């Protein structure tokens, strides 16, 4: 397997790898944002419940 | 009932005619911006004229939507209208028609003047008017859906634009296409009939969607 040939993608490396990189960023980003949402939600719940308890 | 709504809206429009005229002035100003931005070369202006006039018509139509429901919503009339035994479809149709008579028709009638400024030939000017007369009611009808959905929301006009402009695109394509076709001297009938088809479709479906949207927004 000629790795340098694989990475250069026949000269189109920028376009091909660029595309898959953007894919990774967007899909990965979507998952990351969702996980952050979980943290935010938990944080909200915690502070929300505490104030409710004080009432 | 339908006639009552139309007459009422027309009367209100006459009372606030400054508002109405501003739609027209907006149209004029926007169209004039393009030669200022691009240059006065007549050949180029003639090429871009159909698109420019039509886009300006789109934007002006969209701005006029603010007058469709907002005032009635604020003074409570809209809720009353919802309670009448008359089908809401007719009420909506009446309001949209009044809006079109006051904003769309003057726009269409003024367009030849702008067309001349851009050097359009006479047959193209005629097609421009016809295309706008066919297209502006479609714009008002589709726009009414957006106006009804966004009643009372912050972000007002901009939000309506985001919702409605993509839906305006077919009207733009066929309308400007008709004028283009008249310059090339072929296919005008095709474009105009497609525009007519859009008008038929929107007359049937849009007021229904708008009525549904009004009920949703007013609950």
């Amino acid at each position, binding site marked *: 397997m000629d790795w340098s040939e694989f990475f250069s993608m026949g000269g*189109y490396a920028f376009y091909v790898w660029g*595309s898959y990189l953007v894919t990774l960023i967007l899909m990965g980003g979507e998952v990351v944002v969702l996980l952050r949402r979980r943290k935010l*939600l938990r944080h909200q*719940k915690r502070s*929300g419940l505490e104030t409710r308890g004080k009432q | 009932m339908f006639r009552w709504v139309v007459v009422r809206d027309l009367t209100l429009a006459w009372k606030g005619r400054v508002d109405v005229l501003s739609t027209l002035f907006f149209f004029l100003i926007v169209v004039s911006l393009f030669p200022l931005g691009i240059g006065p070369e007549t050949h180029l202006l003639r090429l871009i004229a159909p698109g420019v006039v039509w886009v300006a018509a789109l934007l002006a139509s969209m701005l006029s939507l603010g007058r469709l429901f907002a005032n009635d919503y604020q003074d409570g009339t809209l809720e009353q209208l919802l309670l009448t035994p008359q089908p809401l479809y007719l009420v909506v149709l009446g309001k949209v028609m009044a809006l079109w008579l006051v904003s769309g028709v003057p726009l269409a009638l003024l367009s030849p003047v702008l067309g001349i400024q851009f050097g359009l030939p006479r047959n193209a000017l005629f097609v421009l008017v016809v295309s706008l007369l066919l297209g502006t009611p479609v714009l008002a009808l589709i726009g009414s*859906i957006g106006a009804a959905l966004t009643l009372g929301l912050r972000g007002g006009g901009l939000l309506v634009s985001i*919702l409605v402009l*993509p839906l305006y695109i*077919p009207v733009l394509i066929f309308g400007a296409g008709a004028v283009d076709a008249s310059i090339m001297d072929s296919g005008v009938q095709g474009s105009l009939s497609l525009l007519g088809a859009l008008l038929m479709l929107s007359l049937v479906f849009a007021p229904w969607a708008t009525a549904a949207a009004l009920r949703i927004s007013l609950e």
Partner: protein
Amino acid sequence: MNWYKYASPTSFYPLAGKMIPWFAIPAAILFLLGLYQGLFVAPTDSQQGDAYRIIFIHVPAAWMGMLLYVLMAIYAAIGWAFNARLSSMMASAISITGAMFTFLSLVTGSLWGKPTWGTWWVWDARLTSTLILLFLYIGFISLQASIDDPRRADRAGAVLAIVGVINVPIIYFSVQWWNTLHQGATIRLMGKPTMAPPMLRAMLIMLTACWLYSIAVVLIRLRYIILEREQNAAWAAEAARSPVGQPRWGT
């Protein structure tokens, strides 16, 4: 089994949590498999060289963008017609993923276009229609984001989505028509790749991977939407707080 019980957000929440790994893990595996198939196994195209390998993500992304829009409209319509909150929440959950895929297909389409057409953007029928689809998604998302009352947001979104879905064929037709009118703008430097079996295989694997990914991600988002909207219910507070004894994806 009483399926109607799952129509309530409360009951669906744990079910969704259990379902997620069953989609997420196969999605990841298929992605790796698809990438291997597409980047290694599939032969180099005679006309486009290795540049064509972008289609293995571009085409699935484009399809997902379109399919998800229709799905979103269907869920929104059901949620409106049957007053089914969960269905409307599903529509909202789908919207973001659909927009993401549509945007991705535009970017990858552009990156594919540069070596094959010579420019970063071409106003051809497909790309232009995809751009308009992105606008439709943005409209739906913006509308829902601007409405505070969740039920009004659900129903307003439903009207917009239904109007949008009806307009999509009209828009597509008009853009096609517009494109043939102004012919001559698109010059292809290289022809389209002919699809040899290994290429088709890679495409199908990637498409399936994107589907599974979408289901997993949408279910995750749906769960957060359920939690955020059922805030007053005590159970939701519990679920959001304790990490112990809950399925991983739920916390």
